[in-house]
């Protein structure tokens, strides 16, 4: 176990917990992404691990060594800030060598390590540049090299790509993933960007209001979330109230077979979750009847890059319930076949779905 947090709590002066009794275990070499909205406490948690903030309660171990009461300089972590925070009066090489020079490493050792890292971040020959001569993406790569130079036990990244253009961000993610795999350094990355989390993470932890709601691989959290917040925070989600008996789910008038992993939700109020891409539309009711959940009216259809985004109003004829809006994603050929246009009536079927406990 590389990083172990035990019931860590931190509140600020306002007395509201920013990190609330949080426990977490991260494996050696794992790239763990803490995903949350701004103000969820994710950056605070990272600062607690680095020792940049004192914690109120709990304990922290890094590689089996308790660091709860150690200062940042005793913890041997690497930290990358969103704002790069390079030392402006030092060259790229001096920035990278800073950690080693603090530890009084020899000149030759420093030079060799700087060269190695410049190579790793694909910036060979730029060691003599000043930070202000570099692009944002280059600056952040130098910041990464600077953090890695003293061979930290743990690498902590606080929204490292937040200040960069979309295109550079995608490139840098790949660079980071490669470097992290090669060095096998245990890493926590904090972000609010779910694409980033999906692309980079071995596991994702969803954090909200200082609570760690759910941990899982990207696929698990997307397809089988246990938590409503996770379901809606990761991607778009259609959620409808439903009821499950021993074998079936009832959504309004419709009856669907119950998914096998939902036995614990039998006879409880549940919600059925399906993603926009899990909806199929048909002009008549003749699609496989098991998965049809009702008839809908197309509200609008918009271009969304490789797919068409369709907004539907689901007419649930029974119960006098309010009509529900659903989001669907169709391939352009599907949309063309159906001749999707506002006002059109379609039958709504589900290719796939998942059940969540309903919290009232």
């Amino acid at each position, binding site marked *: 176990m590389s990083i172990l947090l035990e019931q860590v709590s931190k509140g600020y002066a306002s007395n509201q917990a920013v990190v609330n009794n949080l426990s977490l275990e991260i494996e050696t070499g794992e790239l763990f992404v803490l995903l949350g909205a701004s103000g969820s406490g994710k950056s605070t948690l990272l600062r607690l691990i680095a020792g940049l903030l004192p914690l109120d309660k709990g304990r922290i171990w890094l590689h089996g060594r308790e660091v709860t009461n150690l*200062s*940042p300089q005793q913890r041997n972590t690497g930290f990358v800030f969103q704002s790069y*925070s390079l*030392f402006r009066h030092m060259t790229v090489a001096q920035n990278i060598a800073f*950690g080693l020079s*603090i530890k009084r490493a020899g000149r030759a050792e420093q030079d060799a390590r700087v060269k190695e890292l410049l190579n790793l971040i694909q910036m060979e020959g730029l060691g003599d540049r000043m930070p202000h001569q570099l692009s944002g993406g280059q600056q952040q790569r130098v910041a990464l090299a600077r953090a890695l130079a003293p061979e930290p036990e743990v690498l902590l990244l606080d929204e490292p790509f937040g200040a960069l253009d979309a295109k550079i961000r995608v490139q840098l993610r790949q660079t980071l993933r490669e470097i992290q795999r090669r060095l096998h350094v245990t890493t926590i990355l904090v972000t609010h960007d779910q694409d980033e989390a999906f692309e980079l993470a071995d596991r994702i932890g969803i954090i909200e209001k200082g609570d760690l709601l759910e941990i899982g691989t990207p696929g698990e959290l997307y397809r089988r979330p246990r938590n409503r917040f996770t379901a809606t925070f990761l991607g778009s989600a259609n959620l409808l109230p439903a009821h499950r008996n021993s074998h079936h789910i009832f959504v309004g008038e419709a009856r669907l077979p119950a998914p096998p992993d939902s036995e614990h939700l039998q006879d409880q109020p549940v919600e059925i979750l399906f993603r926009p891409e899990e909806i199929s539309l048909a002009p008549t009711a003749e699609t496989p009847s098991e998965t049809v959940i009702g008839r809908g009216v197309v509200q609008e259809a918009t271009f969304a890059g490789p797919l068409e985004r369709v907004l539907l109003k689901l007419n649930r004829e029974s119960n006098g319930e309010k009509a529900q809006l659903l989001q669907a994603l169709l391939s352009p050929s599907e949309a063309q076949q159906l001749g999707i246009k506002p006002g059109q009536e379609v039958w709504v079927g589900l290719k796939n779905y998942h059940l969540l406990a309903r919290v009232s």
Partner: protein
Amino acid sequence: MTASPLVDVAQRAQNTGNAAARPPIPWGAWGLRGAALSYLGLLILLPVLAISVQGFRAGWESFWTSITRPAVLHAVGLTLWTSAVMTVINTVMGVLTAWALVNYRFPGKRIMNALIDLPFAIPALVTGVMLVLLYGPQTAIGGFFEKQLGVRIIFAPPGIVLALLFISYPFVIRAVQPVLQSLEPNQQEAAQVLGASPWVAFRRVILPEIAPAVITGALLCFARALGEFGSIIIVGGNLPMKSQTAAVYIYAQVEGDNFQGASAVSLVLLVIAFSITLGVDFLMRRRHHA
């Protein structure tokens, strides 16, 4: 040039007869430059010229005699060392204060920030009176220092240093504060995570960034202190060879109608102050080019 062809044609029509169409003389721009230069000349250079003429009127030798009198040497020496001591103290405390104001939150911070400029607003004479009331030999504090420690504050160099500390208090703070604010965030933290103690992080990461501002502030402090008169005439009095600074000496010469002596010593102060101004200018330039 993006002038429309129509204007061009109109101008050419006006200039018919001229071999080459000359651009009109920018009277406004030259006028402004001329005004600025004449203003500088009238306000600054003319008086400096006057005092130079007066100082050297009786020749180089009497100028030299005027500035090598024991009273003058003592006065200039006293001025320089009290200003230097004050500058060291105010530089250290100014950097500390600026650091606290930028990096910490504490009750009363806004009021403190507003109070820092107060010495600029208080008349120097009032400063002197305040210090005499606080540290004079008849007061509790002044009495304690004089009787228990044998240190005289008022009418002595310590009082002069106190007065200078007060009047020059804002310079370093106000020079360093904006530079600290403009530093990229997390610099100190980045250094600490890399293994630096808070002090090493400050020395190796923050100090190089703020050094030009610190030196600028210190030089301004020093230059301001060289010419201080109002508070020192009250706090130090006018005791030759004891508590008479250069500015007070000049005042005494003017009182005694010795304009040549006053001018000669004034020129010495002018040369020192001007060198400092040049130094500040050089540092500012370097900061902007960095």
